[in-house]
């Protein structure tokens, strides 16, 4: 994950919240006193949002292809054809190295296996299924969209969605609070207000 991207996400979320608060504050000077508190809260929410995005992506990564079928026409399978499949697979014994560029002996053997299977007319999907059966799901460059692998696809968008919902909820709350702040009043108005309040309270007694 690029740290610069995270910083940018954080800044964007913080800026949006800031703008919402600022606009509310401009329309109601009395709300300015609340800005510091709201800024703190907005910074916290920005942090929460960014963290959720980061951790969601991380969790997903701690866990599509075009389907070609090669005819058995007797022509030798080229390196390019092998690499089309190999780049969709990862070396199971090295860290994060695609099979097409992996220099180990094991990877060379697996590329030879791909070549043999292609020569036998196996499709890409069939070869990948074979590799999954032999070495497990982790060899796939792109996890499948079924079974347990599904969470890899679900968690990052879910994290973003949840963050967006929290953000929307926070903005709505901030807006309602600002709207509830009444403009500065004169003493007379305060008196009127107090009288009205007393009157209302008296009715309820």
């Amino acid at each position: 994950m690029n740290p610069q991207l995270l910083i940018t996400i954080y800044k964007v979320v913080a800026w949006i919240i800031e703008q919402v608060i600022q606009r509310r504050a401009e329309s109601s000077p009395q709300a300015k006193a609340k800005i510091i508190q709201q800024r703190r809260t907005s910074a916290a929410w920005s942090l929460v949002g960014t963290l959720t995005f980061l951790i969601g992506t991380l969790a997903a990564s701690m866990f599509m292809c075009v389907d070609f079928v090669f005819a058995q026409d007797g022509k030798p399978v080229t390196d390019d054809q092998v690499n089309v499949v190999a780049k969709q697979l990862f070396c199971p014994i090295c860290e994060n190295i695609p099979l097409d560029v992996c220099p180990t002996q094991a990877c060379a053997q697996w590329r030879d296996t791909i070549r043999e299977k292609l020569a036998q007319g196996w499709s890409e999907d069939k070869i990948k299924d074979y590799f999954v059966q032999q070495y497990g799901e982790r060899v796939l460059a792109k996890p499948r969209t079924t079974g347990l692998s599904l969470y890899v696809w679900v968690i990052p968008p879910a994290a973003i969605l949840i963050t967006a919902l929290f953000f929307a909820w926070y903005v709505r709350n901030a807006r309602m609070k600002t709207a509830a702040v009444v403009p500065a009043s004169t003493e007379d108005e305060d008196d009127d207000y107090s009288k009205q309040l007393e009157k209302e309270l008296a009715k309820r007694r």
Partner: protein
Amino acid sequence: MDSPISNIPSPTTNIKRILGWVAAASILVALLGMIAVKLIQVQQGQVSSGSAPDFTLNTFDGKQISLQSLRGKVVVLNFWASWCKPCEDEAADLEAFHKAYKDKGVVMLGADYVDTEKEALAYIKKFNITYPMGPDLGTKMSQAYRIKGVPETFVIDKQGQLIKVIVGPTTSKDLSQIVEPLLK
């Protein structure tokens, strides 16, 4: 000046706010928990004691051997691969050990870790290996035993308890010293 009423947060607002923070914290904790579990698993190292994880080895000659079916025998489970040079150093010794103990209640098994069948069979032929060997399909066995590399050898007693983990190449002599007390 703010309205006196607007300054007092209603109980519903407070509850909503608290619920919001609790939900956010729960999501973060859950995601962090997932990462922590994975990190702990990675840091744990090999399974080195307790009940040996069960497995079924599908051998290259088409047989199925489960650990469960070997209760009452000492099992020596070796993880290897044809691309692993240190594995070649111990291959002859493991075969010698198998020949010496196969009639004494010791079962030697070879689990071929992330390998290709053609090269694995060539390896077996090259070292004249006669004990059962099969691929670690889907790396299920190696994950269950949490191996860190090959070769690694696990010695399991007659009751299915893990007695010893040997990381790196071993010898017939070393294996004999470990296995002998288990046969008494």
